[in-house]
């Protein structure tokens, strides 16, 4: 058992960074330096935690770094943190995302408020992934809305206020269901255990017994909030406009990272707490996931701009993740957790490159581009790597996760897996077509004079490319950390179920 101080540091560093950045005056990008330093320290910390976690791989209880302090007993409010192999990857992703998003948004280095919101967002997201208590999770989960709202509405595109509002209403409405569900569950648990105080501790609540009907209703309440966040079809319509209107750094945070709060929540809480509901709800959510894969792929073919394009392709990818999360198979669930991370990295890559192109041309409309591979071969090569990972080319990261999801799901729910396999075909279709329209052909006019990726831009993308290649060729260390935790979760959900 490691000290929980590590996790506390993970929360304090971005918070301190945010305060520090907010206090600096608007000179010479001092806030930016503070922010980069803080997020770099955060990334190093998260990697140290990931490295230390290895010691516990073989143990039966896979939660580590745990501590619990009750803050306000009558309300059941507690500071309760712990991580396992599932949250571990999300923590690293959180730290990585903010660092790369900030590095990619160098043009905002004169704006302390922007970087402060970014760091605050990191702190809250980190809190959500560390929380081992439902109320605490909910508070952090809700708090992430505030920085997001301001990042979109202050620094977004032309329709930013509309986008911010849509985003806010969607997610806030979803959360209302979640809050009711959490309170109900805590209350029910208190009634079952004679003389216990009100608690929202994950460990305690996961032992709550309930009827099948109650489980289904609670599952639905939880799932709606997470389905909006992910997004899962058909609750996705906030995401294209939001990703398109948000500043690039905001799009990165929301699609690469915050979306994972949805699928993480679905796995940890909706699946983990309500095993009884799964018999009824599994086919429903699996079907929505498969529809999302095909529907997202279809709209990615026709959508006019590059950021919406990533939004719809993400809808398809989130469909794959949801498929794995709901499959009830260890292999597929491990694949889903890995895909949460891989999709995060891939999306960071996509949005960074689109941001670089937007900065040069002031447009993200696909029809404005042609033949960029001629004048900008390095940019094209970097985009190609990210694209191929997204297509699921074996040897790159996307393949391992997608393959695990499909082969695992096939063992438990064959037909859903077979239909989803066509998503593999569809992703090649929409990505290669988009690539052809933007990068192939003869470059003329402004397209012919576009500058290739600068050294700084290339360096920002190096971690993305390295992660894509390394996790494609040698995913073992990561898989070894995820697998025991997933096995435990699957075992808890279906104690009698064979380890498929």
């Amino acid at each position, binding site marked *: 058992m490691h000290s929980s101080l590590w996790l506390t540091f993970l929360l304090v560093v971005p918070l301190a960074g945010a305060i520090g950045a907010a206090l600096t005056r608007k000179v010479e990008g001092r806030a930016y330096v503070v922010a980069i330093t803080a997020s770099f320290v955060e990334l190093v910390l998260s990697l140290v935690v990931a490295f230390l976690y290895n010691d516990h791989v073989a143990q039966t209880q896979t939660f580590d770094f745990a501590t619990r302090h009750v803050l306000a007993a009558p309300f059941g409010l507690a500071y309760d943190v712990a991580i396992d192999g599932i949250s571990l990857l999300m923590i690293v992703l959180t730290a990585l995302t903010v660092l790369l998003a900030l590095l990619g948004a160098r043009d905002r280095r004169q704006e302390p408020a922007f970087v402060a919101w970014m760091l605050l967002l990191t702190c809250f997201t980190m809190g959500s992934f560390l929380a081992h208590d439902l109320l605490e999770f909910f508070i952090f989960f809700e708090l992430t809305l505030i920085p997001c709202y301001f990042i979109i509405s202050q620094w977004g595109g032309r329709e930013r206020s509309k986008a911010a*509002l849509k985003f806010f209403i*969607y997610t806030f409405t979803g959360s*209302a269901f979640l809050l009711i569900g959490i309170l109900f569950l805590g209350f029910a648990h208190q009634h079952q255990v004679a003389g216990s105080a009100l608690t929202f501790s994950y460990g305690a609540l996961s032992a709550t017994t309930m009827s099948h009907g109650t489980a289904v209703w609670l599952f639905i309440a939880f799932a709606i909030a997470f389905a909006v966040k992910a997004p899962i079809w058909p609750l996705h319509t906030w995401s294209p406009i939001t990703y398109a209107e948000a500043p690039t750094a905001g799009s990165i945070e929301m699609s690469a990272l915050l979306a994972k709060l949805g699928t993480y929540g679905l796995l940890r809480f909706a699946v983990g707490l309500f095993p009884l509901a799964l018999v009824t709800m599994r086919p429903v959510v699996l079907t929505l996931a498969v529809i999302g894969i095909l529907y997202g792929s279809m*709209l990615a*073919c026709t959508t006019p701009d590059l950021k919406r394009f990533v939004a719809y392709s993400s809808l398809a990818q989130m469909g794959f993740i949801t498929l794995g999360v709901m499959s009830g198979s260890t*292999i597929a669930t491990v694949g889903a957790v890995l895909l949460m991370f891989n999709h995060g990295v891939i999306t960071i890559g996509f949005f960074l490159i689109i941001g670089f192109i937007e900065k040069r041309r002031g447009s993200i409309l696909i029809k404005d581009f042609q033949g960029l591979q001629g004048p900008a071969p390095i940019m094209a090569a970097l985009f190609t790597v990210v694209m191929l990972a997204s297509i699921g080319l074996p040897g790159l990261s996307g393949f391992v996760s997608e*393959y*695990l999801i499909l082969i695992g799901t096939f063992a438990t729910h064959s037909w859903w*897996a077979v239909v989803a396999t066509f998503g593999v075909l569809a992703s090649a279709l929409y990505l290669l077509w988009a690539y052809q329209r933007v990068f192939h052909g*003869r470059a003329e006019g402004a397209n012919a004079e576009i500058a290739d990726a600068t050294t700084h831009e290339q360096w920002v993308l190096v971690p993305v490319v390295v992660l894509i290649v390394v996790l494609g060729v040698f995913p073992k260390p990561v898989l070894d950390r995820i697998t025991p935790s997933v096995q435990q979760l699957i075992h808890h959900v279906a104690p009698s179920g064979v380890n498929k």
Partner: protein
Amino acid sequence: MAHVATLILLFPLGGFIFVLLNGRHMSERQVGVVGTGVVVVSFVLSVLCFVMLLSHSSREVTVNLFSWITVGTLHVPAALLVDPLSITMCLFVTGISALIHLYSTGYMHGEKDFRKFFLYMNLFVFSMLLLVLANNLVLTFVGWEGVGLCSYWLVSYYFDRDTAASAGKKAFIYNRVGDVGMLVAMFLLFSRLHTLTYVTIFARVGTLTPTVATLVVLALLLAATGKSAQIPLFNWLPDAMEGPTPVSALIHAATMVTAGVYLLVRMSPVLALSHSGRLTIAIIGGVTAFVAATIATSQKDIKKVLAFSTISQIGYMVLAVGVGAYSAAIFLMISHAFFKALLFLGSGSVIHSLNGEQDMRKMGGLQKYLPLTFPAFLIGWLTISGIPPFAGFWSKGDVLTNVFDQNKALWVLGVLTAILTGYYMTRLFVLTFRGTERFREDTGGHDPHESPWVITTPLIVLAVLSIVGGVLDLPWIHHDSLAGFLSPTFGYVAAGGHADTLAQYGLALVDVAAAVIGLLAAYSIWRNIWESSRYESSFLEHVWHWDDFYDATIGRPLTEAAQFGDDVIEPKVIDGAVTGLAVSVRRSAEGLRKVQSGFVRHYALATILGVAVIIVFLVARVG
């Protein structure tokens, strides 16, 4: 041996990485030397490995490299399987690749992306070797996708040409359709046998039910039709001729497109379980061979003729697999690699001499200007037509004899295809090298000139191989030749007695007769003309309108559906429903709809108040 086998793989990969990292500082010549050198080394190592395998006690050596994917019961190692089949594939893949790399140093001279070309070519060789050396289906899939990717890059090599960009994409997408089959086959096998390693699959294959076995075979067949350009997924290959000619020779004739046949042969123990599956394979192969041959008779582009000829020849290989004649399929694969690479490289030499002209109507009479290309091409022409004693006669004869044993109807189709083969190849040969000179416009009035030695040397080597290639597997020494060497790899060899010697002579006679009929027919027709609507059909020229059919039944409906989704479903139906719900909720909450800008603040406040009320309520209940 483990190290040698690993090095076969690592050299091309090393060449790729080296040029990737240092390419900017290297001259064209250095890149050519490195790119070709690593493949030559790889070939030498393959020979070494082959010799070691011959003297090895076990003909099946597994080389474990590292653990790639391990989750629960799924264990996928990065490991190689060195056995007669994989080493045979290695030998001809690296050998042909080395020759074509050498050829490319001359052919691609002066292209602006010369380095990138060799980068892709080395990566291709690595992927192809990984495909054949992998010891499990997933690792084979890595190579399978890798060759597809390199093919995509190399077909759209001239990316500023729209046709090239589209052709590359088409190749990748068609292959992906096949990949769905490969994935489903893996899912089925893993869910039933809990392994994806070849040797273990074959050990446990007896537990598969007949239905599952048939499904697996059909899924594998779908995969093979994508990669090996068979019906219904064959029409990407002609478009792939947009790539530079060495690419057409290496990837789209000699090596990659035979991967589907390799996969089926590798999985022969599973094929053995399903009679209906094998029959389907045989029919697909036989029909593809015939259909592609008919199309080849009416094409005007020299590379398109060769592309359809490739499809047709692979059809023969698939047909051989379908009737259980696995060694015949591999024999034809190797000899086809020799003569088809020869024909493509020869046509490249022709195109080179005519400044890029590919239309046969603008060729003719080249015989006297290309003193080395001409005899090499002549040998290629006779070999593919099936004239003895060249390699094509023996290998095609081996296939047709086996088909005759199993299925008379398909044998007739095979012989008809042989007639067509003699016909379209003779037409191509006559239009290119004989008759009147029609190329002066392209050459600006000058005489075409023979290509440099780096281009002609590979031609000569391949011509020699085409002449003597038959010795790999002569009918009367089956047991001491290729067939005998490969036989431990196959789980199942066609049942039923082999044709006796007399029948074999009879069948050989039929083959030769078929070739000669086609040859004479074409010669008498095309000797003096170069365009004739009587002997060319627009239906055949337009590939039986296969593309139009797909476009009408799949392409356009899907595009319309996507557009409908974008215009109606997304904004009106889904977003409309959610927004409508939100609006009606908002209407009922009177106080919140006054000001849009203050909405969020009000909403947040209301929520906090609401939460406070609930908490107070809870606390009161608890207290």
